[in-house]
């Protein structure tokens, strides 16, 4: 099996997020980045397959500026065999269609049997790159996948996808196929020391994008801070005063 896992590097969303001067992206200089949590499940699932299916190769790929090399390294540390960096020239927003087009350009003739990615990115929450990439490659795709089982002859894969209300739908997909995995599918591993050492030495395959693909994408975006809704108030005072105020509110609404 030849597996491609697409990983994205995202900023820690608990940090203070500030819009940059252009108004089109965020200030990234002071942010801490990590692997998109949903993609960690995709990497882990690829590694679980590698453990059960002989001669499986797992490639981890990320598209972005130089900083994203850290998450490719992280995937190698977890146990991926090869790291591929599609290098973007600038720190800015690239729409999902552009990202999917760039991955397609690399992946279409690599003979992947299975492509895995996360259901969405924690930062821009688009849920688009996976299903777009599948469509561009002309392969079937399932999103929100919570479990998978490969057929013995490795020509098909059975998946369960999670839908509303905790229900699950089951599908069988012909390989090659793309799965966009849901969180909770497995328990992503911590890197083993041997893989950490290997990843340190290993060169990444770097691909310069050259000319950007022309895509019928999102024409332009701007970012803004949400207006403070008038719905509620923040309780003020010392912590004890806030506790007392909350108890009064709960009493007044007859909850206590």
């Amino acid at each position: 099996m030849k597996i491609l896992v697409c990983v994205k590097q995202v900023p820690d969303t608990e940090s203070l997020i500030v819009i940059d001067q252009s108004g089109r992206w965020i200030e990234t200089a002071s942010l801490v980045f990590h692997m998109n949590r949903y993609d960690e499940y995709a990497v882990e699932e690829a590694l679980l397959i590698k453990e059960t299916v002989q001669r499986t190769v797992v490639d981890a790929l990320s598209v972005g500026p130089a900083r994203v090399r850290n998450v490719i390294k992280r995937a190698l540390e977890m146990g991926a065999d090869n790291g591929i960096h599609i290098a973007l020239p600038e720190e800015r927003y690239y729409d999902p269609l552009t990202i999917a087009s760039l991955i397609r350009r690399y992946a279409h003739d690599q003979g992947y049997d299975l492509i895995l990615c996360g259901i969405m990115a924690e930062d821009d929450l688009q849920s688009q790159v996976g299903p777009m990439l599948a469509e561009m490659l002309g392969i079937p795709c399932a999103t929100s996948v919570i479990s998978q089982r490969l057929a013995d002859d490795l020509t098909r894969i059975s998946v369960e996808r999670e839908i509303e209300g905790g229900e699950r739908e089951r599908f069988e997909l012909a390989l090659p196929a793309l799965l966009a995995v849901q969180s909770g599918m497995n328990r992503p591993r911590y890197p083993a020391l041997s893989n950490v050492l290997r990843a340190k030495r290993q060169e990444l395959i770097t691909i310069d994008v050259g000319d950007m693909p022309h895509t019928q994408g999102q024409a332009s975006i701007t970012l803004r801070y949400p207006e403070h809704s008038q719905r509620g108030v923040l309780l003020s005072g010392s912590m004890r005063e806030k506790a007392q105020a909350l108890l009064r509110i709960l009493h007044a609404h007859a909850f206590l």
Partner: protein
Amino acid sequence: MHGDTIIIGEVEEGKVLPVTYELVAFARELSPGPIAIIILGRDMASAAGEIAQRTGLEVIAVEHAFLDRYSSELWKDVLTEILPRYYPHYIVAAHTSLGQDYAPGLAVRLAACSITSVQGIVWEDGAPVFSRAIFNGKLLMDVRPEGITVLTVQPGAFRPEVSERTAPGPVTRISIQLAPQAIVPQGSSSSAEEDALPLTEAPVIISAGRGIGKQEHLDLVYQLAGLFAKAAVGGSRPVCDLGWLPYRSQVGMTGKTVTPKLYIACGISGTPQHVAGMKNSQLIVAINKDPHAAIFRIADYGIVEDLMVFIPLLLEEYEQSSLQ
């Protein structure tokens, strides 16, 4: 009639899902032009009739035995064949597990622009710009479309209109030819287990997010729930992913949608996925040490404190007040 805007409705086992009517409200805000609704399934006569009656809009029911069960391949094939006949400018789907699955690929197939999880429309020189939440709701991204556009709309973002009495819209039923598929649906199942007090019936829900930090800290959340006569404990997706709570306790898009009288969010950041499942609670209290957490924007009462310190203090104050 050719629709400027075509809505792709959601119907489950013959029942029209409410999100379909939310999409109608969105489409009406988007464009004064004609709107039509497409639904796909095996026998859609009664669902089509209901939508036509309630909205007064044209309904196109595409029917085939294979459409009894959803598959993204099938839907993309059918929609790519049917949609161009109507020359839509906007194609509107719901940002549900269904819409997320087929809409981005459909956009690629139609060479259309794709914008997902839209929760608002703003206008710039008479042209619509679509707003969506990013970074756990801390920022909004305004996206200007280019050409024909496929949109997925966040459930709960638009209120279905109360129908004015109009004449029912026309219903067109189309049957189609279908080729064998690379995806074969195999049915569905649900986790049958339920709690003594199911989340959806609890008048009070105390909900835990990743901000509680450790599984042991759930004790505090249970203690807080203990103050109320009938309260259930719920959680955000990450808390269930970590195995701290079972998935049946999950509130949000892929979990339960709840409308309790009181919802106390403990250490929950307020992602659009979570908010979609609880924003219609009658009273919302949020406790989070991050003052920028999006949950505070929908909370009636917000408390910016570390809940590991605040909840014990609250319990202590409660003890004292009940002794008096």
